[in-house]
């Protein structure tokens, strides 16, 4: 069977046929960008916005700070609105997560029969305000536990929950350890080897009945 000339060189963009024929496995291979890169981009965008505002304000701030009750726009209102906008920055969940004063530091026990195997500080993958968390992998009488110490973790937005995961280093197979609300002490099933599944991940999961990882990770760290 022979090719119709139109099949070999279709009309339209003359580059397309050659690009399709030249595709190789490497063209399909993808590596996820490093965790935290988006937070860094968001930070630079926020800095852009801040410097643009400083330019627009000129030296007005200094004067306003020393002349409470003076005439003109109340600068405090402007700044509050600016802050709100900055916080909106790519923070679909963060706006709900960051609740001022919602400190929920829960002390976790550190008994004498606990042996620390590995630990990790979880990095924010998107701006979450003062929320922070660490993870410790401990052995307790031959049982492996993952202990999460979280602080300033606000309740999840309505219709969603936080879920804790251990993920393999290739980030291809997330294993759920269940729903979390803040600090937790969870037994790691023996079917999960934390040496391989070393990435601790907290995701925001919509209550949609889908048990898979939503792809919306809030915090992440690697046990080491």
């Amino acid at each position, binding site marked *: *069977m*022979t*090719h*119709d000339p139109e*099949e070999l060189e*279709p009309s*339209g*963009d003359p*580059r*397309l*046929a050659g*690009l*399709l*024929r*030249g*595709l*190789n*496995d*490497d*063209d*399909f*291979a*993808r*590596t*996820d*960008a*490093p965790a935290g*890169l*988006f937070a*860094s*981009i*968001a930070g*630079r*965008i926020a800095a*852009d916005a801040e410097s643009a505002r400083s330019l627009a304000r000129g030296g007005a701030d200094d004067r306003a700070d020393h002349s409470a009750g003076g005439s003109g726009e109340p600068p405090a209102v402007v700044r509050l609105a600016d802050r709100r906008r900055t916080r*909106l*920055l*790519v*923070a*679909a969940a963060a706006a709900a997560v960051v609740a001022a004063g919602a400190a929920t530091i829960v002390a976790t026990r550190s008994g004498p029969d606990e042996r620390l195997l590995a630990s990790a500080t979880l990095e924010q993958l*998107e701006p979450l305000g003062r929320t922070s968390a660490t993870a410790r992998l401990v052995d307790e009488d031959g049982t492996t536990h993952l202990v999460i110490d979280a602080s300033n973790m606000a309740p999840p937005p309505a219709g969603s929950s936080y879920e804790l995961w251990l993920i393999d280093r*290739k980030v291809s197979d997330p294993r759920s350890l269940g729903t979390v609300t803040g600090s937790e002490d969870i037994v790691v099933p023996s079917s999960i080897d934390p040496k391989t599944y070393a990435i601790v991940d907290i995701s925001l999961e919509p209550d949609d009945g889908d048990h*898979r990882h*939503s*792809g*919306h990770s809030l915090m992440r760290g690697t046990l080491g």
Partner: protein
Amino acid sequence: MSVDLAERVRMSEHGAGVGDAARDVRSLAAEFRRGDERALERVYRDHSALVYSYCRRALGEHRAADATQEVFLAAWRSRERYRPDAGSIAGWLMGIARFKVIDAYRAAGRDLSDPASPATSDVGTDSVDLEQMALRMLVADALLTLPERAREMVRKAYFDDQTHAQIAEHAGVPLGTVKSDIRRGLQRLERHLEAFDDARP
């Protein structure tokens, strides 16, 4: 770490961002252009693996994150120049990425203190290669967004080198269906190339 096409297609069903309905994609593009910062997050989520993988392949792991950051910052700062009617956002991002990668490549080439840097390399030739690599990776992504039947037919026609008549016989559909599926598929792929060309440094 190569992933074959079938595997990529399977993964795309797990919400890798390529299965969005056309309407969603259009409204996302409009929100992005208007300066909705949440739209940037979605654009990043959907396309950062493509942009980062390209930067990593062209520049190495060490410089890939910086280059990726520059691409998304440039896209955000020039978002008003993005024209949704001139093609896909993936194409536009990769068009920008191509310029950033070529810039970074040139900068590294001038770094004569680095004995590993290709001091004798011809940047003119390299930039053609770097652009071709960007286009192929873009087309690979775009292929996965086609409806399954069209994708299979394009794959058979261009990877397996089958004639349209052979494809029709295998699939048990009329030849005209094969021709129109492939034509429409190619037209959709072209939208990505248009946006690529529309990007400015």
